[in-house]
């Protein structure tokens, strides 16, 4: 396939068969969140369980209900390690344009790089694999994103793989360029993320180096020595010598004769 494909799981996390088929075809799972009942709570328990270690993302159904609470409850899913990275951040599909602006604003406040995608770039593949063939020949655009949904997704995926093979044979130039383009876009997005990480890491290392350089170890030790030993009054030190003599650690003669050995072995 020459576009990004996702398997839209509308029943929360129930359909194991379709999910496994999509994952085997390297197709991330998209969970539909519609704000009803405890659907997000159940999804949280699923994704944060041992069975939730697979690439996924979220789709938000816009009911005209644009409460911030609906976005807040998605944050814990967006910071899940297996949340998918798209080309411009973590993809969040919004069906209906109502809450798009609010979603972008809210997640920016949480410093989460979220790529809000809506109907302009997202297409539902409803008429099977043949529809994708016609799309590739007539109106292909590398930025388009496709969603698969419903029962029998295993067959649709197999058909899509066959259609991709047909396109390779019948339209070799298109297939090569489209595949290269998809690969380049993917690599570019990864390099962009790596660059962001390296910039952040570099800034951390620079800060640590600056903080470390503020330690003047020699100065610290000299100050410590002065404060602990030099700054003491002379009588205090002399009293200490007498205690050492009383403890038997030092000879009495060494108190007034500098030629004798001070401390006993």
């Amino acid at each position, binding site marked *: 396939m020459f576009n990004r494909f996702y398997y839209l799981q509308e029943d929360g996390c129930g359909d194991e068969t379709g999910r496994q088929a999509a994952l085997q075809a390297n197709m991330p799972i998209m969970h539909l969140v519609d704000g009803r009942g405890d659907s997000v*709570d159940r999804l*949280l*328990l699923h*994704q*944060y*369980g*041992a069975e*939730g*270690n697979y690439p996924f993302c979220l789709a938000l159904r816009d009911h005209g209900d644009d409460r911030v*609470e609906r976005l*807040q*409850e998605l*944050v*814990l899913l967006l*910071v*899940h*390690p*297996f949340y998918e990275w798209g080309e411009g951040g973590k993809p969040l599909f919004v069906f209906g344009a109502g809450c798009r602006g609010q979603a972008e604003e809210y997640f920016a*406040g*949480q*410093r*989460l*790089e979220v790529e809000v995608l809506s109907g302009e770039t997202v297409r539902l593949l409803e008429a099977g694999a043949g529809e994708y063939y016609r799309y590739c020949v007539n109106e292909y655009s590398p930025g388009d994103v496709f969603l698969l949904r419903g029962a029998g997704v295993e067959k649709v995926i197999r058909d899509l793989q066959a259609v991709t093979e047909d396109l390779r044979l019948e339209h070799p130039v298109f297939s090569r360029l489209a595949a290269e383009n998809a690969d380049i876009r993917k690599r570019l997005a990864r390099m962009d*993320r*790596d660059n962001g*990480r*390296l910039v*952040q*890491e570099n*800034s*951390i290392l620079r*800060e*640590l180096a600056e*903080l*470390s350089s*503020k*330690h003047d170890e020699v100065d*610290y030790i000299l100050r410590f020595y002065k404060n602990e030993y030099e700054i003491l009054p002379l009588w205090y030190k002399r009293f200490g010598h007498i205690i050492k003599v009383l403890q038997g650690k030092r000879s009495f003669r060494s108190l007034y004769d500098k030629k004798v050995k001070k401390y006993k072995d």
Partner: protein
Amino acid sequence: MDRYRYAILYHNYYSLDGIDEMRQKISALDTPGILLLCSLPDKFAGSLPPQTAHEKFVISPNLGKDIGGKLLLMQLLFSLAPETPYTFLLHDKRSYQKQSGRWEKEGLFSILEPEKLSAITAAFDDDPNLGIACASGYIRNEYLGDGRFDTTNSDLLGELMKQYAIPARHLRFVGGTMFCIRTALLRDFFPGYGALEVRATLESGNVLDHEHGTRTHCWERMLSWVATSAGYKIKEF
């Protein structure tokens, strides 16, 4: 979700070695706990950390240093295991600006030593007024009176005290923000998505408060006041 006696909320900032260190400490403990971990995206460029039965990961950009990470993990705890009675807040502290950074970390982490952990949970069970348990020698009090504090964060702290109705008494806090607190106090102080709301107000990056106050450093103090403002005690172990 299993029931746990305690949860460890650990913010990992510097190196993944810190996570192994934490796992070793937990393996030495008799009582089972749940470990919630927050780290930065750059730490996992190669392979993603899986969720397991007793270990949950989040990956988040650096917002509010360890405080932002701990707030995120609190929200996760409230969602996954809200009935866990005690919560340990920890992070991989490296105070490079201080000579004593390493000793401080060892001291602060000592609350996870098996004997101390048993003593702490027993003390919580015995004393209903105990809100926070911390390592010995880390309780601070910067309050000078008249709404002023002996820190660059003084003005911001005053604002937050008003906003959260923190009374000007019992303003002691645990320096280093590593302690064990009753989870119910955190839940009450951050109802709904309160922890995430506070997180959104914190500064990005590895902010310091040497010259100017920051909300991040204010919340270092405020997290202790979650307990003291509700009339609970802090005790050293």
